[in-house]
């Protein structure tokens, strides 16, 4: 008899536990990107160019090594500079004179040529957000037109902040972004400082392929 009672009790426990009430489903709202539209409960891309631009800026966050060629044009005068990044190393070059930087153990080291050999010094200037330059940009700041991407006027100040460190009250105009694949390939714009209009042409290359060897000191 005790075995039978035990069996009923066991069955009853199993039945009770199996019959607990299921939770009520929660209705989560779907948020689409600006270039998508919700169709039948699913985000569908409706602006391919905007999506591309968004992807480009997402990829920008992964820029660890690339080369940036800069042309500063003042009427007939052209000045070429090249900046390279390779993770914790970078370089700046103009007219064959190349300097190197390496961030190591919290110290930014500067390598510069002096005579026949390189010298090293530690840089101690604090990092300013203004030095981020184009890293401030995102896709929302641009308007695409005929395959070209123009920085909205109200966002020019993000670029101006960089140049204002040397050219107070300068203005940026006609900022155009060019794209190849899903990467930024260039930036062209006018920088107006006082009476002078500088045409700035910046070209990205060797993205993911730039390698820097710090000179031996």
């Amino acid at each position, binding site marked *: 008899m005790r075995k039978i009672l035990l069996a009923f009790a066991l069955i009853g426990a199993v039945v009770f536990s199996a019959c607990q009430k299921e939770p009520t489903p929660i209705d989560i709202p779907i948020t689409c990107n600006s270039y998508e539209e919700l169709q039948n409960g699913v985000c569908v891309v409706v602006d391919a160019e905007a999506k591309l631009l968004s992807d480009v800026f997402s990829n920008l966050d992964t820029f*660890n090594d690339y080369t940036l060629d*800069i042309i*500063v044009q*003042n009427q007939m*005068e052209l*000045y070429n*500079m090249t*900046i*390279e*990044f390779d*993770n*914790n*190393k*970078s*370089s*700046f070059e*103009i*007219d*064959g*004179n190349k*300097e190197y*930087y*390496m*961030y190591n153990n*919290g110290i*930014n080291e*500067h390598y510069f*040529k*002096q*005579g*026949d*050999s390189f010298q090293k010094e530690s*840089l101690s*200037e604090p*990092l*300013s957000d203004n*030095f*981020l*330059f184009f*890293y401030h940009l995102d896709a929302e700041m641009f308007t695409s037109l005929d395959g070209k991407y123009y920085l909205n006027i109200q966002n020019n100040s993000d670029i101006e902040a*960089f*140049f204002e*460190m*040397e*050219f107070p009250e300068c203005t940026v105009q006609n900022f155009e972004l060019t794209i190849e694949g899903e990467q930024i390939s260039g930036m062209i714009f006018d920088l107006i*400082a006082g009476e*002078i209009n*500088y045409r700035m042409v910046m070209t990205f290359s060797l993205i993911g392929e730039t390698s820097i060897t710090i000179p031996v000191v």
Partner: protein
Amino acid sequence: MKKYIFLVLLILTFTFVQLIDIQAAFRLTETTKETIYIEGVRHTKIVGSIDMDGLITDQVINYLGANPSSRSDLNIVVADNYSPYEWHMSGLPIIIDTIHQRYDYLEVIGGVNGDFYDINDTGQPLSLHVRDFEVIQRGYGGTRNAVGFKDNGEVVFGIPEFDGYELLVYNDEGQLKKRVPINHINEDPLNESELSVYFDDYLNTIPAQYNKVIIEGIETKINLNKSGYFGKGSLVATTTEQVNIEEHQFIIVGNEFNNDNLITEHDYVVVQLGLGGEWNDVRFAIGADAQPLVISGEANLALNAGASWNFPAPRTAVGVKSDGTVFFVVVDGRNPPLGMDGVKLRELGEIMAYFGAETAYNLDGGGSSTMALKDLEAGGYAILNTPSDGRVRSVSNGVFFVKGELRPVPDPIPVWPDTRNQLSMPTNIYVDEQNVLHFDEIQGSVSYSVIIDGKETIVTDNQLSLALSVGSHEISIRTKGGALYKSSDYTEHITYNVYPSDIYKFISLFQDFASKNTNP
């Protein structure tokens, strides 16, 4: 008794005549007198009159003087605007421009016209013309005076002394490699040891039996009467063949003079009538008139020759005081309505003595008389006097006060062939952020030659502050060894760029961008 009276009268007559002859009454009355100083040079303008033995004339006198022996950066140069192969006449302002082109480290303060010259044809000066130790013109005849200026401020007057023709061979540093006496001009050597030089006025073929060094002339000057030759140039060929001289060339002819490779394509040579005696180390010299205006501080009242000596005319003169002050005087003339009567040479002598001359000589005058001075207000140079032609006349040469150090004379090579050890080239060359050029010191050097865009600067220290214009500059350096060591070769050039100030701002921005955006 009659004899005694006659004798007394005769003695009195001689005494009286002599008194008149040596003691003229001279007075200079200054109606106005203005004096200014520019860069240590004094200019005084006197408007007034002179009274010479009772003859009163109106005069305008300009004085320009300084003491070059008191300051190393105040010097005197004699200058011209001759063409490389011809004499030439130019106005004083153009000659001043030429000084600035020839010696860009000197600035003319002021000066006057110089020697008498062949005004109707070539512009050749009549007497000695020495430019930076180079005897361009020895002068017609042997009786014309000159004024020579030495580096120590000493001034030499009188008839120049010469040591005969000489061949001077200089290396590319301007060090004298060797001086060789020249035995003949435009004539064959008479024996194995003689040396001849042929200029391009020699019309015959030079025979084959001699060694010949053919020199392309950088500058050649030949006297109109063939009494003087000057040549400066560099080697174009050596030969033993017979040759004809081409235009602007001169040929050194001898036997063993070039056996030890004395003259190379890196050298330059000078053929000139070398100065001797107290004229030996004269750096600049200009020709003057036949007789001195002032002797031992007294006007030369025995003067009885020279350019229209007894007629009033515009005049230019050069004098030196006992303390070493050199001064030029220009007296205007041929313009009585403006109070410019001009002076005779004896009167000019009195004026020079009035200004304190110990010795003075007359230079070319008349319409040539010109005095120029740096114009601080308008820039350029002002003509201080009133040239009697109504305009500045083109003249052969002039003499000027200049501001700036004259280039030191490089030490000559002690012996030839040169057996000195060669110094190393400078290393570790760079320009710092303060635009100072640095390089490592080389033991044994006496100085360094820094060539920037082809222009040489000599520094004794192993650094040089640069003040270069915007653009790209090429810099190379050699170590100079002086007399003890052979100088090094020049280094490979380094390129140093100077950017406009706005581009430096871009550079700074992008350097910071590069340095601050690495991934830690």
